[in-house]
């Protein structure tokens, strides 16, 4: 079914208010930071990306034994792409590899937010809200960062300074808040995620034989897709859908008077089983999205920084179903012409049993907030004091990481 709910979403509210034609008032806030007119994009990967598959530490002597059947290698079929001799890159990311070689992409490995538990919702809450702990906040760090940025000379007085762009059926929490945000969504963002039927099957099998039977019947007759091998359907958990979201966002950001900051959320990264095939699809989608940004942003690409982050990582050890469970440390991707790239930034904690967090997770050695703060200061001209107080409350001890911006 493709019918669309019409609800008073942000999208509809903006459409009705007339504020959408307020582009002329968009601030050139970043003139404050080195004369650039920058673009800052945050991509949230929902479901907890396995950083050890996306950016495998092939040089770590313990990696292969932990990962066994899903260990990546730099030779043989599906060889990972070597990055710096220690880390390699998943082979389904050729565009990121090219940007890395061109000095326009970097990886931050073994990072995490301040969250150390294993609930997706709470992890996403912390990642996106910017608060130390999960809570029921209704604004995200990106929005509060927008509020605190120095305003450019084109800002109209009053509240019409639309500066952020939220992509997707729902505005990601990271960009929700007081600062006005424009919502945009490709029209095809309604399909059921391929992940839903297997989750329901698991539930029904344990609780309701009748529903288990009819779900099985639906799958057997092709009425319901069986799961991960479903064909592209165009949602945020699907490679084609990701690229579509990225391309649309980039075209808006590329406009002279368009928004300067955007948030997207891609789904489907919860790889408890059959991780290799699944990440191959998803990382392809992410990689193509980065290429789409590069293409569509055109001349603005040189002033662009993209941060790709996820709520937490996964267990260092493979589980019993060729996948991994919820863990801690993971990898973040940085891309864009403004990024001082060509490197993997990591204070590598090691993968020996005592080095693992709780004996199971890649330990986190880099605070993701330091990375975001670093970009915010050097690219957008944000003040460290505002970042510590309003954007990431209580994070005064986390210094902005220096040298991320070229």
């Amino acid at each position, binding site marked *: 079914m493709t*019918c669309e709910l019409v609800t008073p979403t942000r999208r509809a509210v903006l459409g009705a208010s007339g504020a959408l034609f307020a582009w002329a008032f968009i601030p050139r806030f970043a003139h404050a930071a080195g004369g650039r007119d920058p673009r800052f994009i945050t991509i949230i990967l929902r479901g907890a990306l396995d950083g050890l598959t996306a950016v495998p530490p092939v040089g770590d002597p313990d990696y292969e034994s932990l990962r066994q059947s899903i260990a990546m290698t730099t030779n043989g079929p599906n060889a990972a792409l070597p990055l710096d001799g220690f880390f390699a890159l998943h082979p389904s990311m050729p565009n990121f590899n090219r940007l890395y070689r061109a000095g326009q992409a970097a990886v931050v490995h073994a990072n995490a937010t301040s969250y150390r538990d294993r609930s997706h*919702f709470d992890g996403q809450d912390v990642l996106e809200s910017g608060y130390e702990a999960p809570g029921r906040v*209704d604004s995200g760090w990106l929005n509060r960062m927008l509020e605190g940025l120095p305003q450019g000379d084109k800002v109209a007085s009053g509240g019409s300074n639309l500066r952020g762009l939220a992509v997707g059926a729902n505005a*990601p929490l990271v960009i929700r808040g007081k600062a006005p945000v424009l919502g945009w969504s490709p029209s095809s963002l309604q399909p*059921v995620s391929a992940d839903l*039927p297997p989750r329901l099957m698991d539930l029904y099998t344990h609780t309701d034989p009748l529903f288990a039977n*009819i779900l099985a019947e*639906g*799958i057997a007759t092709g009425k319901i897709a069986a799961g991960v091998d479903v064909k592209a359907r165009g949602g945020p958990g699907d490679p084609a859908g990701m690229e579509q979201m990225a391309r649309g966002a980039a075209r808006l950001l590329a*406009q002279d008077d368009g928004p300067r900051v955007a948030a997207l959320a891609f789904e489907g990264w919860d790889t408890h089983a059959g991780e290799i095939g699944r990440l191959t699809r998803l990382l392809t989608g992410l990689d193509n999205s980065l290429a789409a940004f590069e293409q569509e942003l055109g001349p603005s690409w040189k002033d662009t920084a993209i941060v790709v982050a996820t709520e937490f990582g996964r267990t260092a050890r493979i589980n019993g179903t060729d996948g991994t469970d919820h863990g801690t440390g993971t990898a973040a991707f940085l891309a864009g012409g403004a990024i001082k790239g060509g490197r993997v930034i990591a204070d590598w904690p090691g993968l020996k049993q005592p080095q693992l967090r709780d004996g199971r997770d890649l330990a986190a050695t880099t605070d993701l907030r330091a990375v975001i703060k670093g970009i915010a200061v050097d690219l957008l001209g944000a003040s460290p004091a505002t970042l510590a107080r309003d954007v990431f409350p209580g994070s005064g001890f986390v210094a902005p990481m220096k040298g991320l911006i070229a």
Partner: protein
Amino acid sequence: MTQPSNDVYAAIALSRFGLGADSNGIAAIGSDPRGALREEITERFAPVPVGVELKPTSDLLVALYDFQEQRKELRAQPVAVAAPPVTANPGLQPAMSGGDMKAGQPSAVPKTMASPPPAAAPYLPQQVFLAEVDARFNGTIHQPLIGFGERLAMFWANHFAVSTSSGEEVHILAGAFEREAIRPHVFGRFSDMLLAVETHPAMLTFLDNRQSIGPDSKANAKGKRGLNENLARETLELHTLGVDGGYTQADVTTLARIITGWTVVRDQSPLGASGTFAFNANAHEPGDQTLLGLTYADNGFGQGREALHDLSHHPATARHIATKLVRHFVSDMPPPALVQKLSATFTKTDGDLSAVYLALLGSDEAWDTKLVKIRSPLEFVIALLRASGEKPKPNVIVSALAAMGQPFWAPSGPNGFPDTVDAWASGQGLSTRMDVANMIANAVPSQVDPRRFVSDSLGPLLSEETLQAVSRAETRSQGLAIAYLSPEFQRR
């Protein structure tokens, strides 16, 4: 097993007898769920849909007849010059116009528009139908705390089913029929509802009684016309006695004769105002009639009214109604003792429906904590809308229900939609439920925490497995979709 708490009864009251929890969850009725349910009966709370387009039957029919005349005249005219194409205002093209950009084309290279077809005049019956849908799904279903009255309105409208697909009159009248013939009587007497239904223009049209002419009546002086047994048959088989109610073909024919002349005025006439029910004595079959062993003197309309009154008090009718109520609310296999109890209450109280419901709610079977029924698509959609607070456009709801196999006010026959688990438990059905659940889950503001949602709205019915599946979902909207599709949410 511990003694069920009031919370269990609150959850059951909402799911089995109501429309599902709204955003306040089950806590809203937690302290005295049975009392709250009884109160909806004593207060006779069946909200009535309202809206500017929701007019009485006669007004709607007059408007329809005018509409039909105009259409006839238009068709009679020679082909008119095509209306000039509607040009989109270029100022509304860029970026966010209308808030809904198509297929990832934000840079909005305006496509050369092929000249669009001239805007068709709104199709009046559908316009009214959608207004009725809107009033109900975005209005009445959100009003009650529990919604037993609304459930009963749905139950009785399905018992006395008409179908919008049968023609323009029923298409425009289905809502008015329910507002006028069903809702006022859901807590009243069955005999009053029966008479209101069988004299309503929607039913008289749907089951062809307008065309039925007494063979020996004045209107049939030329001897070419005759009886149409449709309404009489369904009155006996579906509306009162039931298919095994002990009537014969002769009874069908007799009842058909008895109700000849029950019709609807199309144009102002001595019979009455256009669009109203009328008894046309000229079309009425003269003479006394014997139905189920009782003889009814020919006193015009009174002959049919008395026959319906007796049918509504027949023991077979009591049993038929009791069985259907128990099947609907309790189990596909109605416990005979409970049916007997309701049937006896029906008979003892002259068909006082509130007394019958109270007897039902006073039974242990009604409160069994095992959820054995499955929400029909209509009930499922309503539960979703209540739980989420979403208010989609009526055409979205209409297409969702059609996709789920329960097109609104359009069952395939006068027997209405089925009321058993088998009918709705299919792979196809689940597939469309997934789509609809997903659509709603995506529309819900993403700060809603699905873990909290399931525990608030399902309370003690929530299983550990469902809570875990919801908690483990990758996104909040996926968590909500799992909550909506959980057995506890789909069953009642």
